[in-house]
């Protein structure tokens, strides 16, 4: 099976739950378990929230979401055109956060890594960040 969907939303926190729900609705075609569905929603929430909180630092911007289904693999790409990340491997370390003032725990990337099978982060300061995640459904 091959299918895809594209979504674009302004960087507003009220869109976090909408994007989670939209990706979940698209994923249903894969016949996934409740646990897999929950994993996907959580990982998507982390990436979209990061774009809004860090990428755009709560200023105006656009978050683009692309989902693809290729056989039993769900691929999700979340992109922003925000500030970007200087040091990606440092940012991905558990507990690393650049914004403790908003009570951030520095666990977003760790959650994405744990809940999905693959995680790829591409970023350039001043240009933006693209997070690509894959999950194989049914183990």
């Amino acid at each position, binding site marked *: 099976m091959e299918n895809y969907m594209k979504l674009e939303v302004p960087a507003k926190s*009220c869109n976090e739950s909408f994007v989670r729900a939209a990706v979940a609705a698209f994923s249903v075609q894969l016949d996934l378990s409740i646990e897999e569905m929950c994993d996907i929603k959580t990982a998507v929430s982390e990436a979209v929230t990061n774009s809004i909180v860090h990428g755009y630092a709560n200023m105006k911007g656009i978050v683009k979401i692309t989902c693809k289904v290729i056989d039993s693999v769900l691929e999700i790409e979340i992109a922003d055109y925000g500030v970007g990340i200087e040091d990606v491997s440092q940012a991905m370390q558990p507990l690393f956060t650049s914004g403790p003032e908003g009570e951030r725990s520095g*666990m977003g990337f760790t959650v994405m890594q744990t809940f999905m099978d693959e995680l790829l982060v591409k970023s350039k300061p001043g240009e933006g960040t693209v997070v690509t995640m894959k999950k194989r459904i049914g183990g």
Partner: protein
Amino acid sequence: MDINLETIGTTLVAKLSGEIDHHTAPHIRDAIDREMNIRNIVNLVLDFDNVTFMDSSGIGVIAGRYKEIQARGGKVMIIRVKPQVDKILEISGLKTILDCSH
């Protein structure tokens, strides 16, 4: 997100319903903090029975309240945790420092 607060002595019971994320976290934090400061709260019970979703923003909220309660010499308890929330609590390491039950 809905939050229902009840004080029993020096213990605050916060019943949460709905989704905990970056959008709803400030509301939860402010509601609990206000109550903790008005009354002389020492212990905090978070009732997660109706929590349908939580991401790392929730970890931040819980960790922040834990620090404050610890400073007051009290305890934080999370009760009626559902499987979808259990996984993120586990990863966060919060389960090793808090009293969590299903």
